[in-house]
C-alpha cells in the first residue's frame, strides 16, 4: 500500500473524534485491525498508488468540473461548490441488497400508512399510532383526505437516510418523503469521477446510476390519471432562485419534459393546463419540487405565487397526478418515525430489515425529562425539519444553546425529538493534502412506479468535512463521495498491488478500459425527447 493510507489506518482506529468517552466510529474502508475491507480492495489499490501531488491535482479538477457545471448549493445565501472527494464509497453486492430491501420495505409500509390516514384511519383505531401523534403532525394535511392517487402511489421518490453505527450495522436516520433532493449530485459525481479518475473504475463492475431519469419518467408516466395513454409530464420548480434549481433543470432535461413554474400552469375546472406559445396544453403529471404549503393557494397559503390555484381539487378529481403526493409530511414526521418499525409489522407482518436509531418521544413527560437531563449527549431535531436545519448536536452545543433548547422543548414538546448521537462511520477523505477520517452518511434514492420499488444503486454519500463534525447535509457545508455498488461479490483472488503512477497534474490518457458507466451527459443537450 502506498503512503496515502499508511498513517490513515492508525488514525481511524485511534480516533480522537469522540474524546475516548463514547464508542469509536467504524471505518468504511478499514477494519479495526487495519485490514482493508474486501469491497475496497481494487479501488484502494489504485488510489494508494497515486502520488500526493496527483491526488491533489485530481481533487482540484473535480472541484473545477463542478464549478463549471454550476453544481453548487446555497449556504446562507452564498453559492458554494459541493466538494466531491477523490475516493469513492463502495458497497458490496450483499450489503447493498440489505439496504435496498430495507428501504423498499419501509416505503411499502409508509405508503400503506399514508393511504390509511387519508382514508379510514384504521391504524389509529387499532391503537398502533396514537391519534394525537397524527392529528398534531404539521404535515398531516386534512385537505388531502380522500384523495386517491391514480396508481395508488404517493411516494414516487423517497430519500431514506441511512447511517452506519458503532457496531457496523446500518440504521435509518430519517425518512424524506416530500421533495428529497440530491440525486443530481449522484449523477454529476459519477460523470465527474469517470472523467477525472477513470482508472479507479477499471476491472470493477460498478452498477450504473445514469438510468435514474429514465426510471423516474417511467414511474411518473405510470402514475398518470386513468385513461391517459400518452401523458404530459412536467417538472414544477420554484424557480432559478431555489438552491436545487440545477437539479430541477437537469432532471427535466434528462427526462425530456417541460420545466415549469407555477405561473405557467392554470386550472380550468379540475383540468390543469400548461400555457405555451401554441396555446394551453393539458398536463397530466406534475413532478413538483415545491413544498405542500405552496402548491395551491386556495387550500394552503393564500399568498403563494409558486403553485397553482385549483390544483388540489384537480388531484382529488383524478385529473392530474402530483408527485410526490401532497400530505406526505405526516409520514416523514420525526415523531412518526419512532412508530415506523411498528407500521412495518402492522401493515406488512414483517420484521424491519433496517432498524431505527433510538429516539426519545418528547411529548412523553418521562422521556422528555430523561432526554433533557442528557441533553449534552443527544441530538435534537425539529419534527418537520429537513436539510439539517433546526438540528442541535448536544456534544457540540454550548450550555447556553442547550438551555435555550430545553426551554423551547418545554414550550412545544411535539415539535422536537431527541436521538442518541450516533458516531457515524468514517471514510478516508482528502482534506488539506492528506487522507483523514471524516464522518459519512448515505441518502439512497428510491422510485416507486406502483409495481416495483427501485433503489438507485449507490445514492448520495455525504461527508461532514469539519473534523469530528456529524452534520453531513449539503446545506450545512458538507461534501460528498461517489457511491458505488459492486455488481457481484468481491470474492476474486487477490492480485498483488500494482500502483499506477501517472504524472502529477494531468489526466491519464490510458488505454480504454472495459465499458463503464460514465453517467449522464450532464453538459450535453437534452438527451431524449418525450
Amino acid at each position: 500500500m502506498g503512503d496515502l493510507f499508511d498513517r490513515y489506518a492508525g488514525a481511524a482506529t485511534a480516533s480522537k473524534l469522540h474524546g475516548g468517552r463514547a464508542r469509536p466510529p467504524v471505518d468504511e474502508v478499514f477494519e479495526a485491525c487495519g485490514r482493508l475491507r474486501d469491497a475496497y480492495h481494487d479501488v484502494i489499490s489504485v488510489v494508494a498508488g497515486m502520488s500526493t501531488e496527483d491526488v491533489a491535482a485530481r481533487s482540484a479538477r473535480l472541484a473545477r468540473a463542478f464549478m463549471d457545471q454550476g453544481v453548487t448549493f446555497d449556504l446562507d445565501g452564498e453559492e458554494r461548490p459541493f466538494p466531491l472527494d477523490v475516493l469513492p464509497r463502495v458497497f458490496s453486492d450483499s450489503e447493498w441488497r440489505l439496504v435496498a430491501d430495507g428501504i423498499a420495505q419501509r416505503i411499502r409500509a409508509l405508503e400503506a400508512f399514508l393511504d390509511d390516514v387519508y382514508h379510514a384511519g384504521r391504524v389509529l383505531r387499532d391503537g398502533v399510532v396514537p391519534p394525537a401523534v397524527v392529528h398534531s403532525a404539521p404535515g398531516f394535511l386534512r385537505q388531502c383526505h380522500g384523495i386517491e392517487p391514480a396508481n395508488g402511489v404517493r411516494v414516487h421518490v423517497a430519500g431514506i437516510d441511512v447511517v452506519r453505527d458503532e457496531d457496523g450495522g446500518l440504521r435509518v436516520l430519517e425518512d424524506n418523503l416530500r421533495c428529497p433532493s440530491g440525486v443530481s449530485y449522484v449523477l454529476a459525481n459519477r460523470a465527474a469521477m469517470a472523467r477525472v479518475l477513470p482508472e479507479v473504475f477499471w476491472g470493477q463492475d460498478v452498477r450504473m446510476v445514469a438510468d435514474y431519469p429514465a426510471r423516474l419518467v417511467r414511474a411518473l408516466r405510470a402514475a398518470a390519471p386513468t385513461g391517459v395513454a400518452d401523458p404530459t409530464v412536467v417538472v414544477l420548480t420554484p424557480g432559478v432562485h431555489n438552491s436545487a434549481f440545477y437539479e430541477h433543470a437537469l432532471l427535466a432535461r434528462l427526462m425530456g419534459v417541460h420545466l415549469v413554474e407555477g405561473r405557467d400552469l392554470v386550472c380550468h375546472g379540475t383540468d390543469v393546463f400548461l400555457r405555451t406559445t401554441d396555446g394551453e396544453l393539458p398536463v397530466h403529471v406534475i413532478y413538483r419540487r415545491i413544498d405542500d404549503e405552496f402548491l395551491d393557494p386556495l387550500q394552503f397559503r393564500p399568498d403563494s405565487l409558486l403553485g397553482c390555484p385549483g390544483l388540489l381539487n384537480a388531484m382529488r378529481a383524478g385529473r392530474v397526478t402530483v408527485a410526490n403526493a401532497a400530505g406526505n409530511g405526516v409520514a416523514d414526521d420525526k415523531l412518526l418515525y419512532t412508530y415506523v418499525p411498528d407500521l412495518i409489522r402492522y401493515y406488512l407482518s414483517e420484521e424491519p430489515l433496517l432498524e431505527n436509531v433510538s429516539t426519545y418521544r418528547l411529548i412523553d413527560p418521562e422521556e422528555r425529562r430523561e432526554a433533557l437531563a442528557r441533553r449534552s449527549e443527544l441530538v435534537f431535531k425539529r419534527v418537520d425539519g429537513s436539510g439539517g436545519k433546526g438540528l442541535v448536536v448536544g456534544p457540540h452545543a454550548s450550555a447556553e444553546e442547550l438551555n435555550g433548547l430545553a426551554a423551547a422543548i418545554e414550550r412545544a414538546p411535539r415539535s422536537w425529538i431527541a436521538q442518541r448521537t450516533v458516531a457515524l462511520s468514517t471514510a478516508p477523505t482528502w482534506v488539506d493534502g492528506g487522507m483523514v477520517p471524516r464522518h459519512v452518511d448515505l441518502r439512497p434514492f428510491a422510485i416507486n412506479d406502483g409495481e416495483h420499488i427501485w433503489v438507485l444503486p449507490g445514492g448520495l454519500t455525504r461527508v461532514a468535512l469539519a473534523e469530528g463534525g456529524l452534520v453531513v447535509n449539503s446545506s450545512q457545508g458538507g461534501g460528498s463521495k461517489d457511491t458505488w455498488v459492486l455488481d457481484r461479490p468481491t470474492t476474486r483472488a487477490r492480485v498483488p498491488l500494482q500502483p499506477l503512477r501517472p504524472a502529477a497534474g494531468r489526466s491519464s490518457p490510458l488505454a480504454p478500459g472495459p465499458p463503464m458507466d460514465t453517467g449522464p451527459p450532464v453538459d450535453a443537450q437534452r438527451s431524449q425527447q418525450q
Partner: protein
Amino acid sequence: MSRSPGWRLRTEHVTAFEYGSPARSSFNEVRKSPLPTSRQTVHDARVMTTPGAPQYAYRDYWGSAVVAFNVDLPHDQLVVHGVSTAETHEQRRGSEASWAAVGAAANRMAELVAETELTRADDALRGIADELHAGTPATTAAAVVDWVHRALGYVPGVTHVRTSALEAYREGQGVCQDFAHLALAVLRAAGLPARYVSGYLHPEPDPVIGEPATGESHAWVEAWTGYWWGLDPANGSEVGHRHVEVARGRDYADVPPVRGVYAGGGDIRSTVTVTITRVA
C-alpha cells in the same frame, strides 16, 4: 320515544362579492349545503353562482359538502347562492358518559381536544374550566356554555372571523362565532372533546309557515358527553328545530361558507343575506 314533528326549513344564503376592479379569475370553495345528521334530513341543496361556472363537489375531512368552482373570465362581481331544504328535529339526548369514558374518547378524538389558533386558552380560561368542572361531563358542558353566554355581550361589528377566543373574551363582546370559539376553548380545557358547528338559525321560536324571515349565518358547538350534544352559547340554549347544521370542524377556519382566491380585482367587499322560511 316518538320523534318530535320536524320543521321543514328552506334557506337561501347569498354571498355577493364586489371587486374594486375586475378580477381576471377566481377560485372558490363553498360550504352552504346542510349535513345529513341524526337530527336533520336534507331534502335538497344546491349552489348557484353568477357568473356561472362548472362545479366540482366533494366531502371534506369533516364530512362537510363542498362545492368548488372557478371563474376564468374577467368579472367585477361574484354572487354565490346556496339554496337548501332540510327537515330539523329537536335533539334526542343519548346516555351520559362518565369522565373516564370522556377521557378515552378524548384520546381517540385528539384533534377535538387540542387547542387551535382561534380557540387557545390562557391560565385565566383554564382556571375557569377548573371551576366549572363539576358533576358529570354533561353538567360541566352545560355550565361552560351558560358561563360563555353570560361572559360575552352579543355586539356585531366589534370582532371579525379571525378574532380568537381570548381576544373576544378580553373584549367582552362578539358575535356567534366568538361565543362558539370561547366555549370551545373552555370545554376543551375542561377535557371535553368539542367541535365548531356552522349553520343557520331561524330567528322565530314559533314561525308562521310560509313566511320568509331574515335569518342569519350562525355558529354553535357540540360537546361530547357520551354523544354529540349541540349547545348554542350565543343563545344560551340547546340546539333544536331552529338550527340547520351545515359544517363541522375544529373552529371557524375549517368551515368558512365561502373561501376563495382571486387574481387582480383590487379590494373586495362582500355582503351576506340569509332568508329562512319554514315551509312545513
